[in-house]
């Protein structure tokens, strides 16, 4: 009874309005252009004057320069996601948590990799972004463990634990967590796709978006494999659930030229932004990272469109979560780029605006 009343239309309207207000506070394209013309201290000051103030102030005692920006941004992202989860009622919270569980994969693998390479606990903790379903207390407990086996055992209540447990032995044997990471992300997408039919309002359009995200992620993988000259054992790298079948993706990955890949993609996306990109990409006008950013932009635009078409649904929340993630990634790219002495134009090529 409680969950039914919590997820009535009023709850969706309330949550969607709050997310739209938050989304309107995100940095605009003009802000990024201004940031590209600033030096690192000015960027720090600019960030401090925005939504990141609390985290930057808190961390200013312990860190400075690029580390301050980087850790401040990560902390802000984690705090913001936790605040959003607190706002969301009923099934909306469950759904958002399921989508944010990809941060858990990132955190768990960071801890496992760090521990197996003998990195200090404090150093690993700096990199973690506790924005998912595994909270800070649990992450601290995991960090206190020394053996990877104990870390896996401690995650028994995690939704992706069965996959982790199944793949862990093989990962330990091979000495690489890459295969396990792939399997975890595949399980993550299966889990979220299942959640879209749990009765959440906006689940169907979000499912369509998710299929696009899976497709574009697979296309990025195919292009990377082609550029890297990898033609074999690509089946395990593809995510199921999108519009492309795994067989089709394997066939695409074995293409002789980039034009063949672009033509293969255009079969499924004969018109629209993806087809346009494939047209330009086939002409060789894009560098790999530019192509990847353009595909990410297509995903975000699609998300924006469905959130406007279904304003009082889960889509408004998801678009904010996505946009916030890329804002943090953009700010990090600007700060890192400036520190490395890259020009504004070069950095701009790595931004998703």
């Amino acid at each position, binding site marked *: 009874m409680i969950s039914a009343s919590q997820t009535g*239309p009023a709850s969706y309207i*309330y*949550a969607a*309005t709050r997310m739209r*207000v*938050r989304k309107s506070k995100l940095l605009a394209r003009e802000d990024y252009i201004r940031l590209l013309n600033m030096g690192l201290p000015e960027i720090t000051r600019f960030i401090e004057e925005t939504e990141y103030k609390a985290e930057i102030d808190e961390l200013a005692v312990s860190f400075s320069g690029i580390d301050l920006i980087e850790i401040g941004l990560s902390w802000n992202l984690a705090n913001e996601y936790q605040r959003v989860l607190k706002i969301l009622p009923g099934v909306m919270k469950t759904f958002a948590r399921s989508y944010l569980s990809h941060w858990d994969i990132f955190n768990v693998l960071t801890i496992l990799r760090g521990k197996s390479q003998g990195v200090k606990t404090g150093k690993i903790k700096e990199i973690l972004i506790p924005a998912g379903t595994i909270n800070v207390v649990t992450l601290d407990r995991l960090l206190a463990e020394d053996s990877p086996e104990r870390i896996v055992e401690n995650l028994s209540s995690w939704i992706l634990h069965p996959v982790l447990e199944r793949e862990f032995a093989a990962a330990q044997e091979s000495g690489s967590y890459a295969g396990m990471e792939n399997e975890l992300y595949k399980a993550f997408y299966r889990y979220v796709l299942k959640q879209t039919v749990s009765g959440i309002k906006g689940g169907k359009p979000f499912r369509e978006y998710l299929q696009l995200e899976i497709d574009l992620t697979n296309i990025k993988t195919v292009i990377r494999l082609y550029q890297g000259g990898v033609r074999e054992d690509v089946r395990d790298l593809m995510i199921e659930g999108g519009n492309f079948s795994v067989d089709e993706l394997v066939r695409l990955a074995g293409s002789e030229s980039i034009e063949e890949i672009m033509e293969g993609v255009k079969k499924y996306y004969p018109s629209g932004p993806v087809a346009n990109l494939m047209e330009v990409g086939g002409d060789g006008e894009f560098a790999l990272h530019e192509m990847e950013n353009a595909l990410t932009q297509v995903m975000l635009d699609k998300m924006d469109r469905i959130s406007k078409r279904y304003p009082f649904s889960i889509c408004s929340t998801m678009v904010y979560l996505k946009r916030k993630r890329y804002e943090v990634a953009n700010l990090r790219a600007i700060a890192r780029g400036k520190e490395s002495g890259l020009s504004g134009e070069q950095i701009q090529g790595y931004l998703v605006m």
Partner: protein
Amino acid sequence: MAVEVMTVEVAEATAKGLVAIGAGLAVGLTGLATSIAQFSIGAAAVGATAENKDMFGLGLLFTVLPETIVIFGLVVALLLLF
């Protein structure tokens, strides 16, 4: 079988009753319409105010706008009754 004859008094009383029902419906139905309009605006206004306190006045104003519907209903009811 008795044949019922409607006297003038009965007709007048029936007319008054129907007017009262009409007035009740005018207020009741417009009240329902107002509440339907207000619940979504209210939810959005509370959400906006939670994010930005300055939105309180504007949110309140938007929330009470559908009150005009029920006021129209009330006016019609009063016109019917008096």
